[in-house]
């Protein structure tokens, strides 16, 4: 069962975001924040610098508010493990336009690369599937990744994917860190002038 892990997280995130179109993106705290920034900053990215366990639910609120736009949450295994209940909450709402990708290195990258539960075999995609996600994928290879990417933007139902990536450290690429600025520029990108009415 245990496949060798060869995917590079920065390349995975860059490849996913290359095909985003007008998708709205929420990142989890830590490495996925830096991955998305390294792939190219964009005002339609909301970088979460804290609020561990909250990325999925930020994505849900956004997906419910913008049902005609695609919403993509890119987060880490440690981040989503802190908010597993939110997978059940999302499945119950069944948003057609929300996809969640976990960049799973089986480590807490920001605190010294300690093992997360996925290192011991906890199967996040299985949890999402059991919660009721109609689409849930385990991705280990480049080929599986290429199959996954278009589905993130076209599936008609909540989509979950756990992408296994190598447990390597990368240079930190920081986006803006002021939360109010990140919020306002995101809202302006989505809502235009109405953002400030």
């Amino acid at each position, binding site marked *: 069962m245990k496949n060798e892990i060869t995917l590079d997280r920065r390349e995975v995130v860059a490849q996913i975001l290359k095909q985003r179109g007008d998708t*709205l993106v929420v990142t989890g705290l830590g490495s996925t924040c830096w991955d998305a920034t390294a792939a190219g900053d964009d005002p339609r990215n909301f970088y979460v*610098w804290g*609020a*561990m366990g909250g990325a999925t639910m930020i994505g849900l609120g956004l997906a419910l*508010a913008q049902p005609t736009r695609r919403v993509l949450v890119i987060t880490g295994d440690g981040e989503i493990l802190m908010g597993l209940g*939110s997978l059940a*909450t999302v499945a119950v709402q069944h948003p057609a336009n929300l996809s969640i990708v976990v960049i799973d290195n089986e480590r807490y990258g920001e605190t010294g690369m300690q093992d997360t539960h996925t290192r011991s075999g906890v199967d996040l995609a299985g949890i999402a599937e059991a919660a009721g996600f109609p689409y849930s994928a385990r991705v280990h290879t480049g080929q599986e990744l290429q199959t996954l990417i278009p589905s993130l933007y076209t599936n008609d139902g909540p989509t979950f994917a756990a992408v296994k990536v190598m447990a390597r450290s990368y240079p930190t690429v920081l986006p803006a860190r002021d939360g*109010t600025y990140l919020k306002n520029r995101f809202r302006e990108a989505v809502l235009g002038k109405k953002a400030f009415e």
Partner: protein
Amino acid sequence: MGNKNTQSSVAWPGELFQVLKGANIRQVAYVPDAGHSRLIELCQADQQIKAVPLTTEEEGVAQLAGAWLGGERGALLMQSSGAGNCINMLAMASECRFPMLMLVTMRGEWGEFNPWQIPMGQNVQRVLEAIGVIVHQVDEAARVAETVNAAARLAFDTSRMVAVIISQRIIGFKDWNATQGTP
């Protein structure tokens, strides 16, 4: 529901619902509480409102942040025991100045007899204030609607976190002779 409501207190959930409608609230996130049961039913039945049950209250804080990013207003309904669950997520709302309207029905306060409710119930206001939430307390049924109306204006017009704490005095004692009920 085991609550001994007086005549005047029965109307407040309906009035509160009208306030939420008037404030253009489109997402209502909640962990069920007996005190909010009527309001939750009204929200579930409304075509314009997305009523979202949560597994834990902090999910609602994150959801309402996402709702605001997408241009919608939301409200979070919870029992006082849920306030503590929200604190780290509220740190995001504080840093980002997300408007946050929270309606908290109290336990561990007026006439409580479950001792396990006391430690959180007695500290709801100071815990919320410690993380930067503006707290309005209301202990008369007739003032619930006007207080929530003021709280909604404050939250959305000034991008602040505002909680309305609805006293157990309004909700009524829990009737422990009833056959059903949670602590």
